[in-house]
């Protein structure tokens, strides 16, 4: 892949980021709107000396990633909403076994088979995944550079904390092409960090195990408490957000993630032209959610407009952060509906006295 | 003629009796005592006909049998 500015698709940026971050194992199953990822991986991964397998289902994909990760490799799988549902079992197992991996959900309309249009209706599934008390780190890009950057970062994050990390994108970002120069100068900091826990053969040591089954009385409870300590550390160190437009002392704040945040930036311009000043609070980590930063930002405004491509998922976390429901106005488009910047502005105008 | 004896680990033995059925020399029998898990462990009869064939240990699921071959010292 050349350097410099080029027209690149979101799905392709994810592939290049993973390879640049040292991912050498990919297993995935075709599902729209992310098919370019396994397709590109099928020839790019062998070029980098890694393993590409088109698995026969998403169940098989996630369990192959489990195995590759247990063996010490940087591994990734990608899918879209219904396929991610199939992976929940494997994600829970990986969290319980503390196995690092990168997962990508290029969201489409649901529930069920839904459609293939972009959506944000898997926010709940991403931040409240699988069975058991666990979390995964979830990052939400809103442009092509971030599709690359966040995927790249995800591998180091996953290894640092021994945790699955999800990139929550959507069909629009996956299919979008932007003329960008990706910063490919970075080196993955933790690529060669030792993984003493990995199964590499009991050379000079006793056999070790990767398990999430802990039957001894109290053992699982303790393990959960230890996981919780880890999650608290992640909350403290890795929470990220973007806050834009506050220097103009706006009266209103938009809260949105991913594609909706992208569209909202257009809405902010339309609003400014109409004399309504708005700021934008964009969570980057959906888990850990930036509650404190949002709470602080919300104190400075009269209303928080929450825009999502679903019927109200992130808005629950916004309510928790803001602590005053009367301040919150929600507008959502479910089932693959994508709002226009004008549409969002009309909603704001209708609510602004 | 090889001679041998076996050691039965009373804790590992579950009294399944597969060894009793297997032994071609009838040198193992169902025991009369139970171990701390409640199993009636097998016992070596020690009647002098054990020839360390190891069939008992091979069939034993629990690795409860150690087989010892006894060799006569060479006469000068």
């Amino acid at each position, binding site marked *: 892949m050349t350097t410099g500015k080029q027209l690149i698709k979101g799905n392709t940026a994810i592939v290049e980021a993973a390879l640049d971050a040292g991912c050498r194992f990919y297993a995935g199953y075709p599902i729209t709107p992310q098919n370019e990822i396994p397709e590109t991986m099928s020839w790019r991964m062998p070029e980098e000396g890694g393993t590409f397998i088109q698995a026969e289902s998403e169940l098989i994909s996630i*369990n*192959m990633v489990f*195995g*590759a990760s247990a063996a010490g490799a940087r591994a990734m799988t990608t899918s879209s909403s219904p396929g991610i549902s199939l992976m929940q079992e494997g994600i829970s197992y990986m969290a319980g076994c503390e196995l690092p991996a990168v997962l990508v959900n290029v969201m489409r309309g649901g529930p069920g088979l839904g459609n293939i249009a972009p959506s944000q209706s898997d926010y709940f599934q991403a931040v409240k995944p699988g069975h058991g008390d666990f979390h995964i780190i979830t990052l939400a890009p809103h442009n092509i550079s971030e599709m690359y950057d966040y995927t790249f970062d995800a591998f180091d994050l996953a290894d640092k904390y021994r945790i699955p990390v999800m990139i929550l994108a959507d069909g629009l970002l996956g299919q979008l092409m932007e003329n960008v120069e990706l910063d490919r100068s970075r080196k993955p900091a933790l690529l060669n960090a030792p993984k003493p826990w990995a199964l590499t053969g009991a050379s000079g040591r006793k056999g070790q195990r990767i*398990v999430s089954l802990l039957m001894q009385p109290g053992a699982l409870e303790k393990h959960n408490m230890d996981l919780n300590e880890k999650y608290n550390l992640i909350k403290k160190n890795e929470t990220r957000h973007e806050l834009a437009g506050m220097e103009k002392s706006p009266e209103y704040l938009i809260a949105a993630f991913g594609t909706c945040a992208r569209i909202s930036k257009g809405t902010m311009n339309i609003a400014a032209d109409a004399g309504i000043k708005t700021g934008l609070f964009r969570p980057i980590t959906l888990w850990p959610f930036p509650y404190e930063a949002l709470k602080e930002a919300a104190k400075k405004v009269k209303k928080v407009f929450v825009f999502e491509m679903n019927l109200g998922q992130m808005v629950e976390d916004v309510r928790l952060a803001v602590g005053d429901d009367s301040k919150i106005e929600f507008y959502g488009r479910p089932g693959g509906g994508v709002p226009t910047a004008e549409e969002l502005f009309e909603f704001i105008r209708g609510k602004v006295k | 003629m090889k001679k041998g004896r076996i050691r039965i680990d009373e804790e590992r033995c579950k009294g*399944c009796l597969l060894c009793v*059925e297997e032994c071609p020399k009838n040198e193992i029998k169902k025991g009369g005592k139970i171990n701390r898990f409640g199993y009636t462990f097998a016992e070596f009869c020690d009647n002098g006909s054990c020839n360390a064939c190891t069939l008992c240990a091979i069939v034993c*699921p629990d690795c409860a049998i150690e087989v010892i071959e006894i060799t006569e010292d060479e006469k000068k």
Partner: protein
Amino acid sequence: MAEKIVYKKPDSLTDKIFSYCWGCGHSTVHKIIAELIDELGMREKTIAVAPVGCAVFAYDFWNFDTTEAAHGRAPVVATAIKRVHPGHLVFSYQGDGDLASIGMAEIIHTANRGENLTIIFINNTNYGMTGGQMAPTTLIGQKTTTSPAGRNIKQNGYPIKMSEMLAQFESVKYVERVKVTNAASVIKAKKAIKKGFLNQLNGTGFSFIEVLSACPANWRMEPLAAKAHIDGVISKYYPVGLIKDIK
């Protein structure tokens, strides 16, 4: 007089007493696998994948690297491990529910892809760990806790012969069905598993060994009766012997 130990517990087994029931085939097969790992000198280069079932605790008994896998997923977990560590000995060890029920897609695709793995399939015609429910391998007429009137063809279909089925795939190289009843059969079973391991180490390819194994607790039989049941009943439906052996 000199004394020499000619048979003892293999090094690749830990000291933990098997938690399996009396007369259980798992204990026997765990033991012969460990003996083979010792004989082949592969303890430091073996990675095993345990099932969900009674043998979920296999890693307590094996002194080599072992991972848990979600129910049925062991063959694909093993596939990934082998692709990451192609020079290691990687095998999955699975029971009837794990391999032939929930894991059916995984084993079929792993076999069809001809992954260079050894799969050890423990067939005791029921779901042991959960108390003796019907399995895809339960015999016609066999009473289990979920087929109290006996497995019946109309409701439950026929018992699945995994070995014969997988042998159909071009990429499957070696399939043998063995049993662990008396010492002679244990020796034969060990030979078959050894061949499965050697096939992997010399690059021949996918090997599948099905082991007819006793489940005295759920069959409601003492171990000697369970042994006779395998010899007299189970192996009439699932014949023991070599099914496929190609390069």
